[in-house]
């Protein structure tokens, strides 16, 4: 059992969720309410990681993380270190790869909030921020929960993009999914089976918890 791989996977999934959800709430809300030219283009760009082969996405990320590419050189100038084959690198890659999984459920949820509920809140004296916190967020909560669940589970299972950008450095970029692949390559079927079962269990528990929490609200009926 590769405990360091499990730790990398869990850390990666947690950080991805933590950073991505506020971004996704802002993006999803903007896309749900705004009417502007090029909105379809924006949505297509966000959905792109959904359809691209992970190797293609990973390849472009690998290129842009290089020290002579804009993102990589900016990062190097800021921190003095590179992005490729580091935990920060796979975290950035994971944020990009998970964008559609986080944004789309939240955008759909915001689209289903009737517009006049916000107006009713304004006319009740609530500021736009109070309206967001007291009215909109509670109403889109199921969307946020499913975005979190999808992002978390998808990050645990991500393979191609992580492998391209991070390689398989022990304790740094080797996630559980990559460790399983390594075990199979080394004909260690028992190790692969243990880790696979663990990955499945963790994913199942995560999804179960999240969906359970999201569904436990009385007013949802009817």
């Amino acid at each position, binding site marked *: 059992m590769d405990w360091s791989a499990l730790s990398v996977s869990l850390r990666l999934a947690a950080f991805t969720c933590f950073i991505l959800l506020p971004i996704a709430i802002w993006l999803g809300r903007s896309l749900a309410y705004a009417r502007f030219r090029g909105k379809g283009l924006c949505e297509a760009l966000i959905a792109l990681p959904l359809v691209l082969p992970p190797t293609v996405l990973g390849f472009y990320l690998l290129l842009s993380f290089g020290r002579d590419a804009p993102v990589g050189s900016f990062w190097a100038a800021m921190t003095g270190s590179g992005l490729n084959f580091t935990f920060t690198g796979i975290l950035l890659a994971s944020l990009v790869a998970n964008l559609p999984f986080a944004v789309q459920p939240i955008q759909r949820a915001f689209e289903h909030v009737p517009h006049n509920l916000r*107006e*009713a809140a*304004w*006319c*009740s*004296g609530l500021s736009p921020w109070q309206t967001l916190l007291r009215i909109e967020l509670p*109403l889109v909560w199921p969307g946020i929960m499913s975005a979190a669940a999808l992002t978390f589970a998808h990050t645990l299972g991500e393979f191609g993009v992580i492998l391209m950008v991070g390689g398989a450095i022990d304790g740094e970029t080797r996630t559980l999914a990559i460790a399983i692949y390594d075990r199979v390559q080394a004909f260690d079927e028992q190790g692969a089976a243990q880790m696979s079962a663990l990955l499945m269990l963790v994913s199942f528990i995560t999804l179960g918890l999240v969906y359970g929490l999201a569904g436990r609200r009385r*007013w949802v*009926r009817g």
Partner: protein
Amino acid sequence: MVWPGAGGGYVADSRITEPVFGPIAGLSVAVNQTGPIPLAAEFVCQPGELLALVGPSGSGKTTLLRTIAGLYRPQGGRVECTGEVWFDAERKHSLSPQRRQVGIVFQDYALFPHLTASQNIQLPLRYLPQPQRREQAEQWLAKVRLDGLGKRYPNALSGGQRQRVALARALARDPKVLLLDEPFSAVDQVTRRRLQRELALLRQQIDIPIVLVTHDLEEAAALADQICVLHNGVSLQQDAPDVLFRRPLSPLVARLLDRHNLFEGIVVDEYGKRRLRWGENYLEVAEGLDNLTLGEKVTWYLPPSDIVLHRRGRPSHGERENPVVATVSELVVLGGITSVSLSVNHGDMLRFDIATHAARRNQLTSGAVVKVSLLAAGIYLLPGHQVRADAHDKRK
């Protein structure tokens, strides 16, 4: 973040909230813009008064309501309420909906589905400490006869109960004006009648201007002190219901109010007296004829209540006033009321309603020849220059 009251160079300037023409007690609205929704509307509503905005769908009723609330900002116009300027396009001044203190009941009530009835009512009361807030909400629930239902979520309430919660939420804020956007359209007829009665009773307890948007003329006539008729964003006439239904300013207003009996006549002289020639009839008119020139063509209107059917064999009230012979061309029985269409010799159609039993007693049948009187006091002349819908508010 979308700030509905800001942007576009608009500010909420506290120096501008003082009105220019001195304080107005009620609500006064003047809106004009060329697009995207053309508007040219003006109306006033005094404290304690209920003003109904009526008109066909797409006439801009809801947009005007949203303008009052600050949810819509037209290109031009002013909104003033109880001596405070809420909106002034000329001076780029607009208060946000949060600061206008309006109570609004949306067409679908817009209750917050994740909050209980009591919490919905408490939301506008957030400036109060929690226990007081709950107590106030309880009082409001009792006022709208929903005691004990405070813990229910909106989806567990009936349509009528939801409407009451929405009304309580709107009033809980102690608003300066109450806005009702077709509040009775989403409930069944029985509930609607009951809610209308309750609104009429509730009105006696509040003395703020109330603006009701409706396309139901009967509702407007029953509930409103003043009715403002809108068409394509233009306010055509504002008057008390009885005045409006008897004295429509233009044929268009008459049509929008579903008034029939609109005819054309010519001003003539008969034995030294002014008369209105209508086909082969020479009608006596109580007022207005003397101001017109002989030979002038004039549109006139007669409320159906001023058409008196002569009883067979017995003299009727007002029988000698403008007797007209006509043929019954259509009888439509609608329960206790029968709608009668009479064809006058020259082809015009007189329409009025009588009780069904009265129609039977008078043996009204299709094709029968009857006599009616057109009461002189009811005949209302709409001289040519007023046929165009150009007059707005008669009360100014």
